[in-house]
């Protein structure tokens, strides 16, 4: 089993979710995160003082899938999350030792 972890722009989340659903992904978990990278942050001004905020809001999507799906999922995410502008994000692929569904105790493929 593999875990795909993608950091994407927040406003892309619905598109990515729909695209993943369409290729048969039935589950995923998302987290609000903040990213630091090539994409510039923004300036904020309070009472005449200027601050540069480097961290940019991002969303992290985690999907655990069978090994055979990896390529397809990565490509789907790329296609649906891409804007072509700096800050589109990254996709990381990890190996997973074991997956269990809490409700049933099922393991492996059947658990996701």
């Amino acid at each position, binding site marked *: 089993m593999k875990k795909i972890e993608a950091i994407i722009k927040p*406003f892309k989340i*619905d598109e990515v979710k729909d695209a993943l659903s369409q290729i048969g992904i039935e589950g995923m978990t998302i987290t609000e995160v903040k990213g630091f990278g090539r994409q510039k942050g*923004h*300036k*904020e*001004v*309070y009472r005449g003082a200027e601050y540069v*905020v480097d961290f940019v809001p991002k969303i992290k999507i985690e999907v655990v899938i069978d090994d055979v799906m990896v390529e397809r999922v990565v490509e789907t995410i790329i296609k649906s999350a891409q804007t072509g502008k700096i800050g589109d994000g990254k996709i990381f692929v990890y190996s997973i030792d074991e997956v269990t569904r809490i409700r049933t105790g099922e393991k492996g493929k059947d658990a996701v």
Partner: protein
Amino acid sequence: MVNTADTLFIMLSTALVMLMTPGLALFYGGMVRSKNVLGTIMQSFVILAVISVEWVLWGYSMAFGPDLAGVTGTLEWFGLNGVGLSPFAGYSETLPHLTFMIFQGMFAVITPALITGAFAERMKFGTFLLFTILWATLVYNPICHWVWGVGGWIRNLGALDFAGGTVVHISSGASALAAALLIGKRKGYGTEPIHPHNLPMTILGAALLWFGWFGFNAGSALSCGPLAVNAFVATHVAAAAAALTWTIVEWIYRGKPTTLGTASGAVAGLVGITPACGFVGLTAALIIGIVAGVLCYFAIVMKTKLGYDDSLDVVGIHGVGGAWGALATGLFADKAINAAGANGLFFGNPGQLGIQALSVIVTIGYAFIMSLILLKALDWIMGLRVSPEDEVSGLDLTQHNETAYNL
């Protein structure tokens, strides 16, 4: 002669009406996404600043100053020239002229602030500000003069508008429609979820509106007598009735009553009773409220079907509610309540309904067309709408270099 109690009444009413604009800022601010809350609040707050200044400079003179052919006041009272502490009998014999002026100033402030709900979450701040000043000058001031100014042609027709059904609500509602149509839908409208980001803030705003509306409506009697009492009670009854009916209708229609619905219903009722509260009795107030709750609810449901993006429902609540109130005044007005008013259809005077209808149509037409022209021109000169990237990032950051929350 100046009457102390009346002066006090109107000063305090002025303070209450002043509070409505920040109330509106919160009411609206809670309904937008969190990236736009400051931008939304700012639009109301800056109007409180800029229109107050506009009003003392030229607005009051245009609206209430010496009449020019029934269509506008002249600039004779520019900079409050001649507007002092003694009463101006044309408006009130018991109030210092300045007291009347500042009370009316708060109406001039909140009216353009109402419009901002239509183009929420996507308008350029600079363009918005210029639009507001132009709109106040070319739309609000004349309409106010027509309806309330000595010599105004709609006033002379005998149209009844106790506290601003046409002047405030219809004018802003019609302009909101123009703005919503012209500026177009928000990015993602209809495809992505666009949820209110802070409904308790919206409820707080509705509460402050309700509270301030006592000053708005009862204060419009300009004197602390029976008329004010009638307006006060009618206002509360209509607000409560409309809040209740909206709740019930939504419960039936959608399966559950919503908090936002109850609050919206209250506002709809307050809008509906505004033109009528000093002319109709309490049973009429109850009916006006009940109808306002139902009517505005379905106006909003309709919007979703018609497909334009009047983001915070200015048309459905202020436009429709205001028009209903103005017409209802033509139905329920009763000289037994206000001898200086007129009887409505149900009291044997069908003509009044015609006059009311005319004032509604003229106000809608004028406000709609003028707003369209102004916005079109501004769009051409400086652009109405922020860039798509800025819309995604939100107004707070892109227009004001700020973030609302760091919780």
